């Protein structure tokens, strides 16, 4: 077991390294001299030279990558061009908000997806199946930024039930568990939950349908096992795959919330990215992408490990 875990970690390390290389390269694929990504175009020449030196931009690229990576590992993500502040404090606050939103969306989307997918898998070919699959297809096909606007029109503009912008009344960045913050969370969380709902439904329908068609289920029924007993066997067999899909979906929620956060002005990483794009603040863009991607790599690793813990067959793979 320990060896399995170690092997998984060893396999994730080169991926993490390559991901950081990609993020490092983002500054260099931006058009023009990377110094333009750090300084305004009208900066005096001596300042340009000084900054070039402090950022190590006069050194060869591999050395630059090494220096950048070393700093990142020590928690130094550099400074924002727009505000001049350190990136990490702002980013960590935004990360918490995005995580809150993603978890809330997961708590809405996963249970609904599990129920719809199980129903569809158990009643294949019936109208129940068609209704569940239809909901799932609508969920994965809807442009969620548009769905967000529709929700705002219905619940904020027309009915005036829920707030449409930000995470709190005063617009402060922090989040805590109280009525006001929960109210602000409802619309963005529901909007963000439709995609994982659709994907979990589709996946579970496939898994459950496949398991129910297998010989051992027929055997169990033939032996006279009642319905609840069969259900336990189905759950046991479906859990590993279902958990891995949901784990990955949580990662997609974290990284994919940029559009929904933009619609609702939710003070998370998505809004941070959006502002960074508008202000051409490449260091903030780079750091945010790096942290989100690393989170996704870590989540993948955790899913892998959880899967091999639950399912002994996975350990050999």
């Amino acid at each position, binding site marked *: 077991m320990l060896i399995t875990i170690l092997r998984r970690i060893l396999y994730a390390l080169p991926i993490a390294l390559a991901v950081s290389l990609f993020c490092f390269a983002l500054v260099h694929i931006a*058009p023009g001299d990377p110094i333009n990504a750090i300084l305004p175009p009208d900066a005096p020449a001596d300042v340009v030279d000084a900054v070039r030196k402090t950022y190590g931009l006069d050194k060869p690229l591999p050395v630059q990558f090494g220096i950048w990576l070393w700093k990142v590992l020590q928690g130094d993500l550099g400074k924002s061009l727009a505000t001049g502040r350190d990136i990490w404090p702002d980013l960590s606050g935004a990360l918490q908000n995005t995580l809150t939103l993603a978890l809330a969306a997961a708590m809405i989307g996963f249970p609904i997806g599990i129920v719809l997918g199980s129903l569809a898998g158990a009643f294949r070919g019936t109208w129940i199946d068609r209704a569940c699959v239809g909901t799932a297809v609508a969920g994965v*096909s*809807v*442009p969620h930024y548009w769905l967000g606007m529709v929700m705002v029109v219905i619940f904020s503009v027309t009915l005036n039930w829920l707030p449409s912008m930000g995470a709190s009344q005063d617009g402060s960045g922090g989040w805590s568990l109280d009525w006001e913050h929960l109210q602000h969370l409802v619309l963005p969380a529901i909007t963000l939950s439709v995609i994982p709902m659709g994907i979990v439904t589709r996946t579970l329908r496939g898994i459950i349908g496949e398991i129910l068609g297998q010989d051992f289920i027929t055997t169990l029924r033939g032996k006279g096992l009642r319905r609840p007993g069969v259900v336990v066997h189905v759950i046991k067999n479906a859990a590993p795959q279902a958990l891995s899909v949901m784990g990955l979906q949580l990662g997609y929620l974290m*990284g994919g919330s*940029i559009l929904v956060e933009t619609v609702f002005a939710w003070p998370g990483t998505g809004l941070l990215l959006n502002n960074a794009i508008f202000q051409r603040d490449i260091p903030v863009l780079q750091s945010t992408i790096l942290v989100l991607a690393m989170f996704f790599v870590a989540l993948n690793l955790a899913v892998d490990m959880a899967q091999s813990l639950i399912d002994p067959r996975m350990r050999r793979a």
Partner: protein
Amino acid sequence: MSEIASTAPSGLIQAPARAPAGYWSGVFKRLKRDRLTLICAGILLVMLIMILAAPLIAPHSPYQGSMIRRLKPIGFPGYPLGTDELGRDMVTRLIYGGRLSWLLGITPVVMAFVIGGLLGIIAGFAGGWLGMLIMRVTDVFYAFPSVLLAVAISGALGAGIFNAILSLTLVFIPPIIRVAETVTTSVRVLDYVESARASGASVFTIVRVHVLPNVLGPIFVYATNLISVAMILASGLSFLGLGTKPPEAEWGLMLNTLRTAIYNQPLVAMLPGLCIFVTSICFNLVSDGLRGAMDVRS
């Protein structure tokens, strides 16, 4: 009915190198009976004809606005779907907007189908260090959620149609490589490929005659499935200001500029998103229908 049932499966069980006529006629017969897929394909076809014929059928200019008829409601005389925040006709804008939205949604998938399919087939057929290299690089791109990857690349490159297409192509290449590699690997070990090799066929001939006809179908079906996501992502990039720029008409961008109008004309403001939704869901259902008719296991 019984004739369909008896011919279709036998064509699949044999799974010969070159699909016989029976396979495709079976596919078409199954598609013909799939009413939902046909309806969706019909909607898409009508949309395609409309956006291709935009200059002929659009009642107004897509750019010419008017300050006195801004944000008119749906059903306003002469402007059946109202006007946008600059007084431009919504019918015209939506038809013209479809051009860029379709271009931005479909081009990346087509390019990724060609590039990713090629790389995946190479990785699957050659195996060894080359296959290993291709698949490990693919793994790295899998470490990014697709929205994040698209935003990262086009955010760094800056706004523009070309950059948006480039970044979306890069997003869709890795999943297509994975599918192509999996299918090719499963075909490579089949007996008829082995016997072709034993009878002295060159690698090129084996790939052309035995591998390609059997792997292109599944890869194609998978790629059609991606169009739906691509439409949403492409319009999403424009929505963020990373795709097309004003005054160009594009559904995502129109949705963004109309956001300010949700208090005055919510129904008009929702129209571009509805277009994206309908297109995306139709592509999704057509892809599902194709998968079913071609009997491709995911």
